[in-house]
């Protein structure tokens, strides 16, 4: 029984995480400081770099 509960809990946490990531993806697109669209893949995103508009 405990295994079923653990699986359900893992599923819920995963769903919340995915939902949060999707929310961040769309909000970061609008947020000037989130230059990587929510991606934390490389060190650029952690530096809090100033947005540099050069378009």
């Amino acid at each position: 029984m405990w295994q079923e509960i653990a699986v359900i809990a893992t599923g819920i946490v995963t769903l919340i995480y995915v939902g949060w990531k999707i929310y961040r993806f769309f909000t970061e697109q609008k947020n000037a400081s989130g230059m990587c669209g929510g991606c934390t893949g490389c060190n650029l995103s952690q530096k809090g770099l100033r947005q540099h508009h050069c378009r």
Partner: protein
Amino acid sequence: MRLSELQTGENGIIVKVLGKGAFRKRIIEMGFIRGKSVEVINNAPLRDPIHYKVMGYNVSLRRSDAALIEVVSEATYKDLKSQAIDSKDTPSVSDSPENFLYELAIKKGKTINVALVGNPNCGKTSLFNFASGAHERVGNYSGVTVDAKEAVFYQDDYTFRITDLPGTYSLSCYSPEELYVRKHLNEEHPDIVINVVDASNLERNLYLTSQLIDMDVRTVIALNMYDELEKSGDKFDYEALSRMTGIPIVPTVSKTGEGIEQLFKRVIQVYEEKDPVLRHIHINYGETLEKAITNVRNLLRGNQHISRGVSKRFLAIKLLEGDKEVEDFVRSLPNGNASSILAERNKNTAHIKNLLLEDSETSFTNARYGFIAGALQETFEPSKIKNASRTQFIDLLVTHKLLGFPFFIAFMWVMFEATFRLGDYPMGWIEDAVAFLGDLVSNNMSEGPFKDLLVDGIIAGVGGVIVFLPNILILYLFISFMEDSGYMARAAFIMDKLMHKMGLHGKSFIPLVMGFGCTVPAIMATRTIESRSSRMITMLINPLMSCSARLPVYVLLIGAFFPNNSSLMMLIIYMTGIVLAIIVARIFKRYLFNEEDVPFVMELPPYRMPTAKSIFIHMWEKARQYLRKMGGIILVASIIIWFLGYYPNHSLGADLIDKQIAEIENTTINEDIKNEQIIELEHKKAMDLQRNSYIGQLGRTIQPVLAPLGFDWKISVSILSGMAAKEVVVSTLGVLYTGDSEESQALPERIKQDRDENGELVFSPLVAFSLMLFVLIYFPCIATVAAVIRESGSWKWGGFLILYSCSLAWIVSFIVYQTGTILNNLIG
């Protein structure tokens, strides 16, 4: 806060006076010095000037001038007291506001804002890293810093806030970096500018210095890479140049940290106005230009809306040079004399052209180089016996028009060979560790869904990807070496001709090569490209440069199906990406972006032996990034794939097989035959359950689209999940191919042995090649799409990237798989 923000009746303590030159000197002489109290007599909104009382005298200051004086006020005291902030920058909050504010002003006055400016690749970021202990990315080619970075550090009781600005050759307005640096200097008013000058390339580097002199900012020159100048045998009397320009010069070697402490000691001296050589000079542009400057400057001085923090001489020079941004600034001045200023400018530029027979911008440039040549004539003595340098010798080989390409391909081959061969050993150790962990959990946990989640979902998924960490680190070791040594710039040089054929220029090559590491920063590095047309093409073809996230897919499939030709196969995959990028760029240039490019001169930095520290930083960042992905997106994707593959956990077919198993168990046939039949049925049941799971249904829905490429439903699902991140392709294969085989078996073996319901092998070398090509070409990840949207400023280009890359991937894989199948049938 600034003095202009204080309201009538409020008191403040002066921290420092920003701004420059005569204005700053006069303000200080009026009594606005650190630690002194100032009271606002009358500050009416929208009214100029503001009346203040300082040292017992009433003085009036224009609002824009008061905005250049930093103060601390009672409001600051209350804020800090309520927050009970206790840091190195603030004194402990005592009950006496006067004492507190005085101490705070003194402490804040010892905070020096420093901006690092210099040519690209002059070592600013290395200096920034060494001074601040940061780990910013450095490379031996231009354009590594695409944005400002800040750090704080302490030395000799002073706090330094240093900002590393993008590299720029001048302060004109031709590139985003130039504008950005200029804007930072004019709007942020750093206390001191450290002009990092590459000692091995003085003439070009001092051009920027000449513009800083025009801007009248307090500058200290870091004469960087001084060791290379000494080694070359050249003699440079930098102290004499220092006296001539009024700018202190400190020799530094940023990669070893030599001279950096002295540099910041000198910064303190300049900040405290105690440096013996510090003075402001005017570059003499010659009679004609000087007259024109004076005429325009006099009109600019008459406009009270121009802050005194900005040098009017600099503005006049820029107007005469035809600087569009300064022109717009002058036009935007309220109630100003913009039209008369611009008319005066036009009159003077026409006069310059008549007299000097060249446009005024060229005249200013020539005059600056004349100033530099004159200064160097007196202070610089090149080595008389200069043998061919090491750089020139190596360049003979690596930039040779015939030998350059084979050398480049040979380097790439060695890189892939090392990635496979050296990476194989630690990969095996990690594989064993993952298998051990899987067996440990499997043998010690009771049967149930959570055990299945741990073993078949998390350990199989994450473990399947983590084994490739050593390969990725070895690849990065080589990429870092290429970048730091200066070979990357040579590769760009030999590719320049090819780039022109692509409709791009050499400058696009840097972001493209960065794309071999990670596509997201590579797309951001396209900011260094002035031409929008080239920039857009570079962004859109960048995903075709195979990023390191795709490496696990290649290592897995090449290791399983092409073990004897691994490096050759890897080279083919990478070269396919490059060739496709060339073709696609040509098409885009022809039909989408057909503007002409601005001319570009490519520089070749001298070779440098990369330091172990710099390479370690690159690799450490990559390892951290990879492990973070393991604990994030790959873990989550593995769990989701497992859930979708595990449930609903029953099917009609499985029920029938259960009945068959029960019947066989009740028969009296030979035990061995009975067990064999039961194992076969169990296997069929597992396949049936997986086929009818949610992911099986999803896979079978999309599989018809990908079937012509040789992909079954499991591969189709892996491709779909790989849109989140390319490593997820491997983790998905790891999860989906767990149920069919023994748990301790390595993933390459499992995929090699997998069979469909007809008993046919799912994977063949041809399918593996087709899959690698598909993974190479279709867009690398959602983060890349987001980066393209952000950098292009339009969702349209993000959508276009998805559409074109997926279509191209399908077409290429289709051609390869179908041609391969026909050839196979013909031969065999």
